[in-house]
């Protein structure tokens, strides 16, 4: 009796049981990729007493346009769905589902802070917290580039830029998303006055650089519009609509204007 099993052919291990797949040695390869790129671009510029965050409203998957009105800029810490009473704005671009999850988690935290401490969260604290949220998913990241905007403790425009795993810095201006490589050099030139020199100030290396100064709101708004109308011409994933949020001491203003839909 005992020998019955031993009499079986030595290669009986190779029989293809339907459940044997999991016990194969080596690493299991997943056929499922949990990310996608929903395209679009965002842009933030801060001034002396305001911050502007803008994003186009197109959502794509591959060459398909999912929606022409899918916002990327959100109010954080509002009382309800409309964002009434918010004092911080956030833009997310990249994988839209992760962006949405990131926004909801930050919004929840900023609201809980308000209920627990009886005062609104400062932009500086919120900026640090957003970095922590991103880094907590360091090994399965939120595939989104975030820009956070608000007013700092002195009432000056504050803008923070993030990478998907939480590195962040306070910046004057930042472009993110699919057309960031088109918009950022334009911003370097027009906001930081890179490669601009004072006429007649000298020859060669003696040329004096044009000093950047905080720009007025009307100039910044026009820069944002110009950046996006140009990006639309050269990038297929950008278009349909431009959503701008301007945060000042008197609150958050939201402006929507059309972009080319081709």
């Amino acid at each position, binding site marked *: 009796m005992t020998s019955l099993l031993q009499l079986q052919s030595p290669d009986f291990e190779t029989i293809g049981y339907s459940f044997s797949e999991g016990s194969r040695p080596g690493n299991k390869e997943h056929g499922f990729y949990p990310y996608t790129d929903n395209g679009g671009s965002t842009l933030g510029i801060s001034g002396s007493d305001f911050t502007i965050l803008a994003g186009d409203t197109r959502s794509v998957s591959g060459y*398909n346009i999912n929606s022409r009105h*899918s916002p990327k800029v959100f109010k954080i810490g509002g009382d309800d769905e409309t964002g009434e009473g918010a004092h911080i704005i956030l833009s997310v671009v990249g994988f839209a589902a992760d962006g949405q999850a990131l926004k909801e988690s930050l919004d929840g935290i900023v609201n809980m802070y308000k209920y627990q401490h009886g005062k609104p969260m400062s932009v500086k604290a919120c900026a640090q917290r957003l970095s922590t949220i991103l880094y907590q998913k360091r090994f399965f990241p939120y595939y989104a580039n975030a820009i956070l905007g608000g007013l700092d403790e002195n009432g000056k425009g504050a803008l923070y830029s993030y990478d998907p795993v939480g590195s962040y810095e306070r910046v004057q201006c930042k472009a993110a998303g699919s057309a960031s490589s088109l918009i950022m050099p334009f911003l370097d030139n027009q906001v930081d006055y890179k490669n601009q020199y004072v006429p007649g100030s000298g020859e060669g290396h003696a040329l004096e650089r044009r000093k950047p100064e905080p720009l007025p709101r009307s100039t910044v708004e026009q820069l944002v519009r110009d950046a996006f109308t140009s990006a639309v011409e050269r990038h297929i994933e950008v278009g349909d609509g431009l959503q701008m949020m301007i945060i000042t001491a008197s609150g958050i203003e939201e402006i929507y204007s059309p972009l080319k839909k081709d």
Partner: protein
Amino acid sequence: MNHLPQAWGRPRDDVYGTYDRSYLQTSTPNSHTQSPAVTGTSVLAIKFNGGVAMAADKLASYGSLARFTDVKRIRVFDKTTVVGFGGDISDMQYIDRLLDSIDVEENYSSNGNTLNAKNVHTYLAKVLYKRRSKFDPLWNQILVAGFDDDSKPFLSSADLLGTTFSAPHLATGFGAHLAIPILRRLFPEEMPVENIGKEEAVAALRECMKVLFYRDARSLDQYSLAVVTSDGVELKEDEKLEAQSWNFAENIRGYGTQVN
């Protein structure tokens, strides 16, 4: 019988040899869905003045095999909302059970609230996102139609990655390529939804279903059609394509041998 309880009920080692524990699968990874098996193709939907219309054919394919031809891919939730499923049929049936259970739960709770289409869409998007984050996706793209909190027509999509978006007309699968351009031409997006009549919308969907049957190899000429208005949901589950014309086929040139 052995005096060790661990051995009771098991084949005796001295008779059958040592029990091969590898079949118990205790330390192996869980197997997750890596690809869909039995699938449904396009779902189409469009908003009109006072409601939303949705259509989906009744075919469930197993690869290129037309496996089941009477599968209802549109389900009604709480008499006010419709949900249309593209993608894996067994995952659809699982989600259908989830929706059944929250429907029962909500109707037995005493808060008096009812879930509208927007709530159902949020719920489904969270379920799908959570599952993709566990690397165990529900392989579907879903359209949800009904009304939002302000009783305005609502139409939104959610897919296996948890991505959500909303537009006046939406389509999943092949429909995103074939039906959306037709719908966008008939009803430009800047055109207010109030200018689109119910009959117009339904006729457009029927026309799109025909185009899909002509060109989508995994489609069927029988389909479900749902119309949501404030009066409730009108769901017809044995619609057939009418007035098909294959005359265009003669004029197709460029594939294979040409005789003329």
